C-alpha cells in the first residue's frame, strides 16, 4: 500500500500544490490557519519509477562500471513490486519497463523535470547517479519533486574513494571528455580523498533538505547498496 488516493486515513499535512483539492480538510485548515491535506492510503496500485544517470561518467569503475551496479539496484527496486504495481523508467531508451524518454544524451535536469511532469503523485522514485551537476540551482526542483513523489537518491561512490591508485605525473582521461595531466603525490591524494568525502556529504545534505532519502551506491554491489539505503538486512 502506498500513500495515494485511497480511503484509509494516515495523517494531515500541509497542502502542496498539485494535491487533489477534494482531499483538503477544511476543518483542519481552519484550525491550522493554512491549507491542510488529508493523506490516505492508496489501495489501488503503487508506481515504482527509476531514474538512472547512464551517461559516460557512470561507465567507469575499478572492476566493473557504476552503471552495472545502478542497473542491479534498479532491478532489485522493481523486484519489490507486487501485483498491480506499475513500473516506470525515466531516462533514455531502455529495454524493460515502459520508459519516459528524456533525451538522447542523459541530462540530469531534464530527467528530473521530466519525472516531475510525468510521474503521478506519490510515485516511489529511485534516482541513481553520480550527481556531479547537482548544485544549489537544483534545490527548488529537488524540493518540488521530493514533495510530489517519495524520492530516494543513490549517490554513486567514486571508484577511487579509498585513494587514487596512481602516483607521479599521471594522465587522466575524462569519461565525458577532457584530459588532465597532473602530478599526483601524497598531498594530491589527501586532497582528493577529502574532496570526494566532502562531495558525498554535501549531496546527502542537499537531498535531505529537499525531502529525499539518500544513500551510497557501491560499485561492487548494487543490491546491497539499495538494501543499505532502506536499512533492509541482507
Amino acid at each position: 500500500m502506498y500513500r495515494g488516493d485511497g480511503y484509509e486515513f494516515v495523517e494531515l499535512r500541509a497542502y502542496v500544490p498539485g494535491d487533489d483539492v477534494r482531499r483538503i480538510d477544511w476543518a483542519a485548515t481552519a484550525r491550522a490557519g493554512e491549507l491542510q491535506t488529508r493523506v490516505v492510503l492508496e489501495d489501488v496500485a503503487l508506481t515504482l519509477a527509476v531514474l538512472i544517470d547512464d551517461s559516460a561518467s557512470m561507465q567507469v569503475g575499478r572492476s566493473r562500471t557504476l552503471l552495472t551496479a545502478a542497473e542491479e539496484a534498479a532491478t532489485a527496486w522493481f523486484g519489490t513490486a507486487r501485483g498491480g504495481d506499475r513500473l516506470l523508467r525515466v531516462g533514455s531508451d531502455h529495454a524493460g519497463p515502459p520508459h519516459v524518454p528524456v533525451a538522447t544524451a542523459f541530462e540530469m535536469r531534464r530527467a528530473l523535470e521530466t519525472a516531475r511532469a510525468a510521474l503521478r503523485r506519490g510515485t516511489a522514485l529511485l534516482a541513481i547517479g553520480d550527481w556531479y551537476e547537482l548544485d544549489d540551482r537544483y534545490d527548488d526542483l529537488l524540493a518540488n519533486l521530493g514533495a510530489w513523489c517519495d524520492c530516494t537518491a543513490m549517490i554513486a561512490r567514486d571508484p577511487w574513494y579509498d585513494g587514487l591508485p596512481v602516483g607521479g605525473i599521471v594522465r587522466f582521461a575524462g569519461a565525458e571528455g577532457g584530459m588532465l595531466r597532473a602530478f599526483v603525490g601524497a598531498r594530491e591524494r589527501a586532497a582528493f580523498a577529502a574532496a570526494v568525502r566532502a562531495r558525498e556529504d554535501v549531496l546527502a545534505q542537499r537531498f535531505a533538505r529537499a525531502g529525499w532519502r539518500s544513500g551510497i551506491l557501491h560499485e561492487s554491489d548494487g543490491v546491497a547498496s539499495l538494501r543499505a539505503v532502506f536499512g533492509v538486512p541482507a
Partner: protein
Amino acid sequence: MTFDAPWVLAVGAVVAIGLTWIYRLAENRIGAQALRYSNVAFLASAIHPRPWLTRILNAGWIVALCAVVVGLAGPHLRLPVPVANGNVFICIDTSGSMASTDVSPTRAAASQAAARAFVEDAPAGIKIGLITFSGNAELIAPLNANKDTTLAAIDQIPSPNGATAIGDALRLAATQFPPAGHNVVVLITDGVNNTGVDPQEMAEYFGAHHVPIYTIGIGTPNGDIIGGEESTIDEHALESYAEVSGGAYARAENAAQLRDALARLGRETTIEHRPVAAGFGFVVAGAGLLVVTMLSGLYVGRFP
C-alpha cells in the same frame, strides 16, 4: 659567440624536431592508456594540480639538449682571462714629498696599501715586480708570480726621502722586462722628475716597444708643504708619459681614489677578453642537466 662547426646547430635543430615528433607520438600512445576518470573537472578542482612541475621538467629537457647541441658546435665565448705572459712593474715614488698627509694617512702609506690590494687582486699567473724611486731607483722585487713574495717586498718599501727620479725607475723597469710578453708599467708618483734620466725619453722608448705606462698622480689639488717646499704634481708630464707609451693617466686625491685607480688598472692590465673554447663546458653542463632532469622525471613518474 662564434662556432667551430655551426652546421651542428642545424643538425641539432633537425634532431630536436624529430625527437619532439617522436615524443608527441609516444605521448599520444601513453594518452590512450590514461586513467579513466568520471569527471576531470571535479578531479582538477580536488587535487589542485601543480602544472609548474611538468613545465620545469620540459624546460630542463629543452635547455639540456640545447646546451649539448651548442657544445657540440664548438662555441667560443669572449671571456675575461688573465693576460698571457703578463708582466707588470709597479713603480712607487718614495721621494720626501710622499710623506705628505693630504692623502690619509700619508701618500706613501696609501700607495703601499693600494699596491698591496693590486697584487692581491691580480689573477694567478701574472708576474709582478716592484721598483721604488727617490734620488735613484731600486728594484725591491723582480718580476715573479708569487704574490707572497711581492707582498713581502711591499712591506720593505723604504720611508719617503730624497728627490724624484722617475726616469731612472722607468729605465730600471725596461732592463727587467723580458723581451717577449705583455709588459706594463704602473707608475705612482706625486711629484716632478728632478734628477736622473728624462722620463719622457723613457716613455717614448716604452711606446716604441709597446709597453704602456699607466701613471697615477697622487695628492690633493692644493698639494702640501714638505720641508718648506710645495709638493705638487706635474700632471701634464704624467699625461704625456702615458700618452706616448699607449697607457693612461689617473689622478688620485685620496686613498680610496688611489685604490680604485689601481684596481681599475689591475683589470685593464692583467685581464683581457679572449675567445675561449667553451664546447666542453656546454656539453658537460648540458649532460649534467640532462641526467638531473632524467632522474627528476623518473622520480615524479615520467620518463621522459
